[in-house]
């Protein structure tokens, strides 16, 4: 665009980005200054690092390997309910981790339905604690993500390619060699790297299904050093280790994402001439059904078990739900106040978007420990548990929110900028009259994601909460710890309902009125 006629205001975005950078870099600095590097890492710390890497490698490899057949099946079959299955694959993103863990326990635990069945047919039982359980839970969360990423790449192959291939008389093998394998070679490393990065900073899964020194991630070790021994120096040292791990993983993920595609097509509906015979069709549907069962049954178990416990929950569960709701809403408000100015500024200069990457590079427990170190000399960090949780949750959701918002903001600026300049609309009026009405959809979506993520989060709050403060996920974790499984399942249903409810309200609120 030559001679930009319309200039958005950059300074509010600059201020917001500065605040985020200050929060993250400031806490990293606090951690670095406090870390007692001289003490070095003990054998258990090295074990935590090895475990963190190993489980992340296993989780990402398994997720991707299992996702390929599922994505292939979804890519080449058209059936009633396909859209529903694909939409459903997005659900784990906002599914509270602790709820999924409870569901996985009721399926794969020693008393779960799988072991009941194994016992019935006389096979040895499986255990869900330790490496198995951690990897299982990570696959549960990341198989859908990998499937969506790979499916998307599959669908980006222009229909013309398949048509040409069919004309050339390609069989399934040629199709795989010439078209599908090159595509997979491009997308599989990307998916694996993204999942690897996500699993590196996994906390709740390791806290609940890991156990003891053998199955401790670095993120969990930070929590233990803090909570078991009040050893801030060691917590900070481990936090430094975590920064390096997450940083390297994030760089890997970013590098993997740079690759060329297949070129453009005419976006026709893909018709596949290589759909194969009955055997391949039944294989595909078998894969889809198996994946759906794997993802659905644990959640259904929670709902069935929890519906009974819903009216027999201790009153703390309800007050924790109120606390969580307030935290989620405040968190969403903070996210909007930060994300909108940054997105507007990023429409003028892409560099602002980079601040979102900071949110990916910092893990919640690292930021939590850093904040504790900063706040401790000044005030009681425990009384600030909830505001801190809301703030950290907002910053953690920021990268996702920016991804959602930056594109649409740029479109509005590009599409309406000249007209706005001609009419002399700027500042608040522009925001209110031009931008916001066109941004309702993305804003609602971003707000819904943030609210749901914050609702289900169990991270910083586990670090800061005293015995009387609890969010719903923490309260649920405590119920599980004290063997009140029925009440825990009840709390899980409530949490599930609130997380998805918040997402739905915001997302719907945004989408409904795009055309208004």
């Amino acid at each position, binding site marked *: 665009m030559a001679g930009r006629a319309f200039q958005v205001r950059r300074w509010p975005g600059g201020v917001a980005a500065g605040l985020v950078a200050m929060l993250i870099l400031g806490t990293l600095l606090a951690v670095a200054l406090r870390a007692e590097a001289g003490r070095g890492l003990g054998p258990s710390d090295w074990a935590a690092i090895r475990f963190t890497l190993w489980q992340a490698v296993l989780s990402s490899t398994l997720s991707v390997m299992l996702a390929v057949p599922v994505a292939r099946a979804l890519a080449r079959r058209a059936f009633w309910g396909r859209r529903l299955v694909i939409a459903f694959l997005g659900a784990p993103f906002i599914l509270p981790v602790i709820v999924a863990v409870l569901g996985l326990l009721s399926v794969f635990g020693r008393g779960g339905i799988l072991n009941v069945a194994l016992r019935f047919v006389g096979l040895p039982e499986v255990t869900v604690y330790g490496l198995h359980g951690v990897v299982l839970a990570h696959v549960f969360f990341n198989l859908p993500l990998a499937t969506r990423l790979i499916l998307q790449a599959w669908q980006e192959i222009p229909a013309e390619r398949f048509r040409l291939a069919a004309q050339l008389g390609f069989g399934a093998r040629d199709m795989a060699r010439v078209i599908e394998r090159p595509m997979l070679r491009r997308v599989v490393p990307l998916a694996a790297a993204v999942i690897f990065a996500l699993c590196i900073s996994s906390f709740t899964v390791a806290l609940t299904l890991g156990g003891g*020194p053998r199955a401790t991630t670095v993120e969990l070790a930070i929590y233990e050093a803090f*909570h078991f021994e009040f050893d801030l120096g060691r917590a900070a040292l481990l936090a430094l280790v975590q920064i390096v791990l997450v940083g390297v993983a994030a760089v890997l993920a970013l590098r993997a994402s740079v690759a060329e595609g297949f070129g453009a097509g005419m976006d026709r509906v893909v018709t596949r001439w290589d759909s194969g015979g009955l055997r391949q069709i039944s294989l595909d549907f078998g894969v889809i059904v198996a994946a759906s069962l794997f993802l659905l049954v644990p959640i259904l178990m929670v709902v069935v078990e929890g519906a009974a416990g819903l009216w027999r929950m201790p009153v703390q569960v309800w007050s924790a739900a*109120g606390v969580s709701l307030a935290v989620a809403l405040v968190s969403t408000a903070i996210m909007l106040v930060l994300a909108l100015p940054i997105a507007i500024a990023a429409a003028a200069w892409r560099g602002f978007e980079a601040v979102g990457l900071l949110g990916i590079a910092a893990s919640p427990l690292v930021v939590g420990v850093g904040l504790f170190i900063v706040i401790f000399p000044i005030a009681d960090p425990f009384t600030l548990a909830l505001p801190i949780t809301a703030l950290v949750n907002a910053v953690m959701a920021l990268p996702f929110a920016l991804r959602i918002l930056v594109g649409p903001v740029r479109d509005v600026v590009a599409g309406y900028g000249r007209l706005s300049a001609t009419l002399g609309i700027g500042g608040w009026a522009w925001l209110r009259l031009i931008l916001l009405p066109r941004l309702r959809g993305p804003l609602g979506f971003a707000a819904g994601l943030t609210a749901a993520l914050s609702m289900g989060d169990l991270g910083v709050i586990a670090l800061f909460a005293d*015995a009387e403060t609890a969010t719903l996920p923490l309260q649920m974790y405590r119920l599980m*710890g004290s063997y009140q499984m029925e009440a825990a399942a009840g709390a899980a249903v409530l949490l599930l309902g609130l997380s998805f409810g918040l997402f739905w309200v915001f997302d719907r609120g945004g989408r409904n009125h795009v055309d208004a």
Partner: protein
Amino acid sequence: MVCPRTCSARRILEDTMKYLAFAAGTLLATAALAETPVLTVYTYDSFVADWGPGPQIEAAFEETCGCDLKFVGAGDGAALLARIKLEGARSEADVVLGLDTNLSGAAAQAGLFAPHGQRVVPDMPNPFGAAGAWDDPLFLPYDWGYFAFVYDKTKLTDVPTSFDALAASDVKIVIQDPRSSTPGLGLLLWIKEQYGDEAAALWEGLADNVVTVTKGWSEAYGLFLEGEADMVLSYTTSPAYHIVAEGDTSKAAAAFPSHYMQIEVAGKLARSDQSELADQFLTFMTTDAFQAIIPTTNWMYPAFAPKGALPDGFAAPIGAEQARLIPADDVASIREEALAEWLAVLSK
């Protein structure tokens, strides 16, 4: 004319206002209660559970103290100490109840506790001195027991009767983390006391028996009851709970050649603003009114035997000659070495 965007925002706002009003109401109610002094006692989670001693003891003490006794569950024993250190001078706690003699040395070093100034003669075995001697100036005992592995008689038939036998078997056990839990620490010291330099080798043998290591006793016992393991590290008195409370005689404690003792203690924080009330509570702790509640709620032996026998189902304690305990002052150095060994072996 309807603008559902603002409407949904308004609804959320209304909900928030309702919540805030609720929160404010709660705060006002708390303020109204502040007329009566509040004694805050930090303890472990199972103590404050509905079925634990907390509710009954709260009622009994409040009858006489003219105060509001507030129990706060703050994790398992060792995490309790970390919590007190973490909160430091800002802590609201007046009394900490639920440390044991394995932690009291470290707790004394933290310098946060005040002398109780009482002379007591507890009724419990003393592996290194005259029975009834108690010379800890900061902490007073309230109950005691022996650590043991508890199992289900109907499910486990080939019961190991020593650590060596357990290590050689394929019996699955759940234990607690010695860094956060007093039973976990007890097991660590039990094995260190018995095996000395061979302790690491024994842990190597036990490592494949360990299903998982939990943060606290409650989690481990819950997993055992759920059937996740054959045995759980608990107390010789745990089966009594199932007999007395549930009429279930299937649980038993495996008899080992020796058993490590746990003496649970409480102490007053130096920074307490309710010092007299805290003293009053510690005295109350040694009386029958408190002690009689312990056996059938905390499922331990009372430190000051109340009038009347222990309830049926409570086996008489094993002989004092089988009791093992490391003196509180020696624990710190032994703990460090034993913990390093444990971490090294179990993180393999």
